[in-house]
């Protein structure tokens, strides 16, 4: 297993429920602030943020909830938070027993009984989960990559083993899968172009993103109705709904509101335009794009390369590195 990078956690966004985001003061945190850790010296290895609460997992195996849902529990390797369901991967109840996947109602504060459990029985599952360190960023993909967990029934969903899933991310109505070879698959609803196959049709089974074939991807992220992936060479590809500007493509709603996208971040702007427009080849400003049904390559300013991407329901955040001169 790759050595886990140790660093600091930062958060920003809506914290009207008192979720631990930065200082937690006020309802919104506009710029990244250091995350409040549960207890001094706690080494946070996983953070899963739902809308009204956040689940934080430490290397010591503690999962702690903050926000509309509270509570804490030990023996936890991984957690995944959604409004309907909190899923945790825990060591078995007794010493030497098998690890268990548990689904809890967020309001239960991890007390009482979970809504359902799934014991990891297969060799593949147990091997994957047996490492001493808690799992990092595996859920909703289960250890062994033979299945994943969904917040809507059926909760346990098998995956074809030939997919060789490395990462799996769930959007509002779709799923993205990154396999060992760096290929991306998508399935689910496609009304907003979030599947990336060039149409608005749904896909019931995982379908390869042909547009990205030959470009090995390192990360995938899924938002409410959009998808993002980061290639091994640091490029970002986006597709899906752009109604709120989540794809960083020109959007009517933001242009009409006069909101700046790039200026806040200090990106170079073009003349009087408040919106960083994607130009077409002849130099004319591109029209508004509400739906991008197949992957589009984004340019990052200053030659930055993307390291990681994460999606909220209607926004995207990217961590970049700037290559050495």
């Amino acid at each position: 297993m790759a050595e886990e990078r140790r660093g600091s956690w930062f958060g920003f966004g809506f914290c009207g429920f008192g979720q631990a985001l930065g200082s937690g003061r006020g309802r919104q945190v506009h710029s990244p602030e250091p995350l409040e850790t549960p207890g001094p010296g706690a080494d946070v290895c996983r953070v899963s943020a739902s809308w009204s609460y956040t689940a934080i997992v430490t290397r010591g195996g503690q999962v702690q909830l903050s926000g509309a849902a509270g509570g804490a529990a030990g023996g936890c390797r991984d957690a995944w938070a959604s409004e309907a369901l909190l899923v945790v991967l825990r060591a078995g109840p007794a010493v030497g027993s098998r690890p268990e996947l548990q689904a809890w109602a967020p309001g239960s504060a991890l007390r009482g009984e979970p809504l359902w459990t799934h014991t990891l029985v297969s060799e593949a599952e147990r091997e994957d989960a047996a490492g001493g360190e808690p799992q990092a960023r595996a859920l909703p993909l289960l250890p062994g990559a033979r299945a994943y967990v969904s917040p809507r029934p059926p909760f346990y969903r098998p995956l074809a083993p030939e997919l060789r899933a490395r990462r799996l991310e769930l959007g509002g109505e779709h799923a993205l899968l990154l396999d060992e070879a760096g290929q991306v698959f998508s399935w689910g609803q496609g009304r907003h172009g979030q599947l990336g196959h060039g149409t608005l049709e749904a896909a019931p089974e995982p379908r390869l993103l042909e547009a990205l074939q030959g470009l090995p991807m390192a990360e995938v992220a899924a938002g409410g109705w959009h998808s993002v992936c980061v290639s091994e060479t640091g490029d970002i590809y986006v597709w899906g709904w752009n109604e709120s500007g989540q794809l960083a493509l020109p959007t009517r709603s933001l242009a009409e509101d006069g909101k700046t996208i790039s200026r806040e971040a200090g990106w170079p702007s073009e003349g009087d335009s408040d919106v960083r427009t994607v130009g077409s080849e002849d130099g004319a400003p591109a029209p508004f794009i509400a739906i991008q049904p197949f992957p589009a390559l984004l340019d990052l300013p200053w030659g930055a390369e993307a390291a990681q991407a994460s999606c909220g329901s209607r926004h995207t955040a990217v961590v970049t590195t700037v290559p050495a001169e």
Partner: protein
Amino acid sequence: MAEDNREPLAGAGALREALWALLPPTKEELVPELGEKVELGMARLLQEATELFCGGRRSECLQASEAILDYSWEKLNTGPWRDVHKDWRRVYAFGCLLKAVCLCDEPGNAPAVAEALKVCDMGLLMGAAIHGDILIKVAAILQAHLPSGKRPGPARQQPGTKKARNDGVPVPDVASERPVPRLRCPSLQHFRKQFLAPGRPVILEGVVDQWPCMTKWSLEYIQEVAGCRTVPVEVGSRYTDEEWSQTLMTVNEFISKYIRDESRDVGYLAQHQLFDQIPELKRDISIPDYCCLGDGEEDEITINAWFGPRGTVSPLHQDPQQNFLVQVIGRKYIRLYSPQESEALYPHETHLLHNTSQVRRWQQPRSSCALCAGLQGHQQPRRARGLASARRSVDLSPLGKRVISGHSPSQGGVSTGPPSPTRPSCRGLPGAQSDAGTCGLQPDAALPWHPERRDIAVRCCQGVLGKFTLRSTQGDGDAGRPVSPGAEC
């Protein structure tokens, strides 16, 4: 409060009082009752927002209601419209209610009142009724309190717009085509036996003569009654085009931009349940007796409005429900084809447009009519054969599920009809613009059997007409979801 003071301050105080008088008296009654679908986080937020509201903490309540609206809007955009749980729509309406009332708390802030009215309209368009349809009552009060500058007034200098303008636009020659028959006030039995049951189109004359709308409706009147109300407008000449999109604007804006000015773009207030949103207009119309012949309950009858300038086109499509179309002002040209011709009409294969033909230009139509003001058409395409051209749904007729109706460029109309999949489901995507084109859903399919095509570009006058359903059916999942670009209200 100084009654004798005519300053806005007194007016604003009266506004606040009038609004609060509509609300349930206690905090416990104000919080909407919701089931399990609404999760823990939102349930807590609703409680909190209600407490802030009752505690007079206006700006915090506004923040909380924005969060309510943000989250519930996402639920409204998840999945097909028919699967959106009504509780989420109630949450959305509740958020609109809190926001609208909070906006009006500030005395004398006229733009805030206009914004509050827009918020109410969003709640009416996207939400579900709460507290006895309170948003309708709130909207009525807000409208009455808008300062005269913002209140819709009669139009500036327009000549009388009751008569449809005829700018010498060529009207298609229906005589050369097989006309839809016309009857004067047939009996229910005769109608059912001759037209409804066998599925034949017919135009009914004399049925709507006494409706108030026939004499009252004009652009000035509509602006007066509904000018500052927000409605969904389709922009683009037809919904299969790449540039087609939906947007929201006030009726005043729509009329000045797309009706009076005849801008380059075609704007169409199409398939919108305007009469649920604006009860004053509903009083001007009635429901034809023939509607009782349908299978469903009377409260399942939906009434849509169609209001637009000349040159609007509905591509050839199929309505899922029997319906009547009433032309109040202006004229429309309609072509009908039998459902038996479906194969020959190249329905799109995509789910989005599966009930719309790919054909844009048509061969000689077989059955057609020009529906003029005052006529109620009943469309029964089973007998028609041949190609139908696209046209706004003008036909008043119980359209069987397999009816294919084409609409040629129309004069706009307030057609009330079922929230049918005649319009593509992308209209049901709040905020979605029809990037159908960017997805390769090109409507122009080659016609293999006839090289000669005739362009049916009929330019007619502005018009208003209505359309009623006989019964409700389950249409496409996305049909009926109101548009909400950008979502936020």
